[in-house]
């Protein structure tokens, strides 16, 4: 039973996360604050505009999108960059490298517990609240299934990107700047902070060519556009699968290359 080791790591992650009740509450209020801010900001934007629809989105469309995107973004947060950085800086990575389990997998499963907690503390309650407050504006149908499939790939693409950024710390040995940069780049280019529909055309094309949009924009599109036909859905999911494979290989190769460089040259 090989999956026993992974289940056990997930369980440990959940238990570890539960130890810090304070943090769960703080994250909840932090998110609330962010959403309030977004609410008034976008309210101002829509009030200053002549038409109630901007770039094909109404005010309530935008708010539903932003609330969901923020919840999704927080749901996937497992502090990979931060934890890897700390491991690398204080040398604790040596201990993890000596576990009978590859490092990328170890980090993934140790973080997965937190993600599961996040699901029940952020994503699920947000989904339920938004559904009822918005007057059932979210269509309940196949789009939910597409959304869930899409989130699965989003999660891995996000993890692989974080893992690549974490690996870069082996070279730079500074965490803070890199982590902030990642937060901003992913936050903007994934569509978590501003819906991609609001981007200028050229910028939007660039964003769509990069892997980041597959993290938030793809699942949100599938959720909020139940009218999409099967070809559209397959197109979006295929793009995600492509990035899933590409980032998966890239993160693995880059980490192994970096590790070899360090084990050969010392670090």
């Amino acid at each position, binding site marked *: *039973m*090989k999956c*026993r*080791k992974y*289940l*056990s*790591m997930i*369980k*440990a992650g959940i*238990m*570890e996360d539960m*130890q*810090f009740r304070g943090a769960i509450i703080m994250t909840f209020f932090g998110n609330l604050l962010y959403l309030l801010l977004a609410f008034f900001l976008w309210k101002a934007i829509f009030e200053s505009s002549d038409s109630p629809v901007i770039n094909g989105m109404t005010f309530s469309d935008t708010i539903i999108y932003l609330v969901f995107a923020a919840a999704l973004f927080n749901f996937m947060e497992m502090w990979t960059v931060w934890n890897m950085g700390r491991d690398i800086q*204080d*040398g*604790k990575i*040596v*201990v993890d*490298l*000596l*576990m*009978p*389990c*590859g490092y990328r997998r170890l980090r993934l499963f140790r973080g997965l517990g937190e993600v599961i907690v996040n699901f029940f503390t952020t994503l699920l309650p947000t989904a339920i609240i938004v559904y009822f407050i918005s007057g059932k504006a979210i269509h309940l149908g196949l789009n939910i299934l597409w959304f869930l499939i899409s989130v699965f790939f989003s999660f891995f693409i996000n993890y692989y990107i974080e893992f690549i950024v974490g690996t870069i710390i082996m070279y730079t040995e500074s965490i803070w700047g890199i982590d902030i940069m990642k937060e901003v780049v992913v936050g903007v280019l994934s569509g978590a902070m501003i819906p991609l529909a609001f981007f200028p055309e050229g910028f939007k094309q660039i964003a769509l060519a990069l892997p980041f949009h597959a993290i938030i924009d793809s699942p949100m599109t599938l959720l909020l556009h139940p009218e999409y036909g099967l070809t559209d859905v397959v197109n979006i999911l295929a793009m995600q699968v492509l990035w899933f494979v590409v980032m998966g290989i890239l993160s693995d190769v880059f980490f192994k290359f970096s590790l*070899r460089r360090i*084990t*050969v*040259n*010392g670090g």
Partner: protein
Amino acid sequence: MEPIIQVNNVTKEFKVLNRSEGLKGSIKDLFSHDYKIVRAVDNVSMDIGQGEIVGYLGPNGAGKSTTIKMMTGVLKPTSGSIICNGVVPYDKRTLNAQNIGVVFGQRSQLWWALPAIESFNILKDIYLVEDKDYKDMLELYSTLVDMDSIMHKPVRQMSLGQRTLCDILASFLHNPPVVFLDEPTIGLDVAMKAKIRELVKMLNKEKNTTVILTTHDMGDVDALCERIVIIDKGKKIYDNDIEHLTGLFGAYRTLSVSLSKNKEILTKEELEQMETSVSNLLREQWPDVDMPVSIEDNEIQILVNEAFTGVVKVINAVQDKYKVYDMHITEISTESVIRKIYDGSKIVK
């Protein structure tokens, strides 16, 4: 018997940047390709058998940790080869990890926020330990240490000693054939050190586990190791049992004599006078032999090399001239021998 770890002519070189001084220098360094090669481990070979406890010693920066890291598979040797349990550790790190246990001094492998028992349960699953073996191991542990007092405490609230104890228990949990302990007693109090030595010794005996131990505490060496390997500046300079070590510089013994009925009231001048006259006496008697005389604890101490003069002869010589009120003879300690080796670093066969 086939050795469990074979280290063959292993050399490890690091490429380090030649750093320049000052702010201008650090800016220049950003673009510098001026590397120098540092040889951390230089052609070291050793075979370690199943069930041995080997003390791996050397001054700071001698290359101990580098060797350990190569044996565990975290670093790859520049040349030479290592085989541990029939596996090349640096090629098959994850596979090798299943067969070894490691404790790195201050770095814990336990889950920080959880009680130790939870970490043990997780490690049991990670190393795929059978339920029965795990239960047996915990039973064995509870006969060796007081488990109840530590097992249910979160690791982050433990004292350093308790955490080290748990880390050592964790490293033996999957019953690996080899355990590496890198400075396990660093920063611990006397009682905890004794406890940990006792524990390692018992586990070694019970499970016939090979233990490779690096330490700066000669107490660890005296208590645990039958064999010691010393390296300095990357080169192996000693590899034999501990008895040979004390004989390394000749058979030294320390003779302490008290030349006054009440040694506590002696003044410094009186002592120094005694020291000089004893020293002169010895030089008269044995003009060719160097016998250092010193004052320790208000007594006269003479370091005698028994290869040249018998201790008894020295006692007689002193007694002829002075009245000896008290005397005792001590063996030279492992610590002083090691210190001599580190200071001299000469290669000894």
